């Protein structure tokens, strides 16, 4: 079976995000790019299945700009077999639907994919749309926020995190799209051997033009006027764990801020 894992290269969570002065987007200079943390759970889940059944082939699908190379190499070093990289300088400006259409076509062009795994959302655009959209395009079921995964051969029992600790267990065909979240597994670190091996693994680079994409109308949603959060805080401070300070805080919350 071929398992497709869709990954996105994103700025590290510890990175400070700076804007282009014209507000047209973020300034990627001096930012470290990594695999979006939730996507690592998808890679790990595919590798865990491969650990059980060596005939499974784990394919990385990544749509992104040239900053994505590092993330793809990391995924191969973790143990994925090969990668399909759809390179596009404008990738970051595409909306969720466009990304889903591009990944869908890349997966169709590959053929015989038996399962799709990815993270519950990329931590840059925070949309969480691609899994459901891709599943609809494939006419497969989808399960999002998957925090436990039990492979049963033809089917999968996938636990979905709902609100406030509630959970649902879904029984779906293994040919489904799964969007993974924390709790499902602990992603492995690439070993030195893995890093060396990754250098020889096939990394197929494509452009959107190489895909058999008939739908030319890609992005529906555009983004503009990027801005930093600007909320000024008043920073009123009290020193010491005293009853007076606690009372002053509560009075401020009640009478000044009017929030309790």
């Amino acid at each position, binding site marked *: 079976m071929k398992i497709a894992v869709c990954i996105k290269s994103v700025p590290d969570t510890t990175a400070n995000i700076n804007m282009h002065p014209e507000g047209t987007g973020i300034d990627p200079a001096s930012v470290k790019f990594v695999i979006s943390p939730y996507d690592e759970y998808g890679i790990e889940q595919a590798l865990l299945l491969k650990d059980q059944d060596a005939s499974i082939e784990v394919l990385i699908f990544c749509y992104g700009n040239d900053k994505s190379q590092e993330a793809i190499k990391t995924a191969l070093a973790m143990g994925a077999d090969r990668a399909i990289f759809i390179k596009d300088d404008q990738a970051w400006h595409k909306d969720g639907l466009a990304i889903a259409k591009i990944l869908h076509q890349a997966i169709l062009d590959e053929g015989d994919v038996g399962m799709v795994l990815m993270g519950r959302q990329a931590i840059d655009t*925070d949309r969480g749309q691609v899994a459901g959209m891709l599943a609809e395009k494939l006419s497969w079921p989808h399960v999002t926020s998957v925090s436990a995964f039990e492979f049963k051969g033809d089917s999968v029992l996938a636990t979905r995190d709902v609100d406030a600790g509630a959970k649902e267990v879904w029984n779906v065909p293994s040919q489904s799209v799964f969007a993974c979240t924390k709790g499902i597994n602990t992603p492995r670190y690439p070993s030195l051997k893995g890093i060396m091996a990754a250098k020889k693994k096939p990394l197929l680079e494509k452009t959107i033009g190489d895909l058999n994409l008939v739908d030319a109308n890609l992005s529906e949603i555009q983004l503009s006027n990027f801005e930093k959060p600007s909320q000024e805080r008043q920073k009123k*401070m009290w020193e010491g764990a005293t009853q007076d300070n606690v009372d002053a805080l509560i009075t401020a919350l009640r009478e000044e801020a009017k929030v309790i």
Partner: protein
Amino acid sequence: MKSLLVYVDYKQGGVKSTSIELLGQAHRLANALGLDVHAVTLGSKADATALQAYGVKKVYTCNDPQLDTYHPECYVDVWAQAIAQDQPMALFASSSASSKDALPRLAARLDWGMISDGVETHVEGKVVKVKRALYSGKCFAWANAQEGRPFVATFRPNVFEAFDGFKQSAPEVVSISLSQAPSKDWVCVKQHASQSDKPDLSEAGIVVSAGRSIKSADNFQIVDALAQTMGAAVGASRAAVDAGYAPHSMQVGQTGKVVNPRLYFAFGISGAIQHLAGMRASRVIVAVNTDPEAPIFEHTDYGIVGDMFEIIPMMTSALKKLLND
């Protein structure tokens, strides 16, 4: 395109407050655009007549009890039928576990763009622009569909002011039936209800969070006690979750939940970028930390430099007295 269509969610006994909030914002936009507000509802609790208090002109409703348990295919089916009849400018929904799960599927079926987790809206000519966070709130941008192109948008709870201009009107009710039974090989086989009766983090009006210096899972009891006095939800920093003091479902931050309550308490949380990303949209932020240099104090309205193990119980008893009177 004569309407804005709002997906209205119900709880026991009526319309969910998040849906009322969104209906209000839909009216503000509809007034500016010269449109009507229509609604789509589903499940046996969905009571179309309850919507007459919210100025809804037309309600598409499917009362099939099969919809009482969530299934993305069935939800998409109802929404798609309502949209096919209504031809709205956009479908709006509150962000929730089910809308996040099923609406992308609907958008792909309709070939519509989707805007997730909006926090603000703005009308420019005939185009609705929606402000949303990126990088969990490290930056914001305005999203919009091209003029004349319909779209799906979800909005975070607690972001819009209450609307007091609702006009009473009995809505026209259009009944919808499921076009197919739920699939037999895509089924929810088990549901685990939430272990706690605490409010959900992403919808709560007040959130009380603690960091790693809480030192143990048991110590969260004092945080719970404080939260209870205000009906608040309880959160935790990633450090506290990684140390095993709280489950991931409680994590506030870039790789956890993003919250925007009217009041946020950070106890013993230093204020890593990761955490700030998840809570900086809160209206009022309070921090308590023993370190006066903790970065969290740069992002707070009110702060006390001191030990949370002393301060939390003092606050709990003061608030108990105050809020019970």
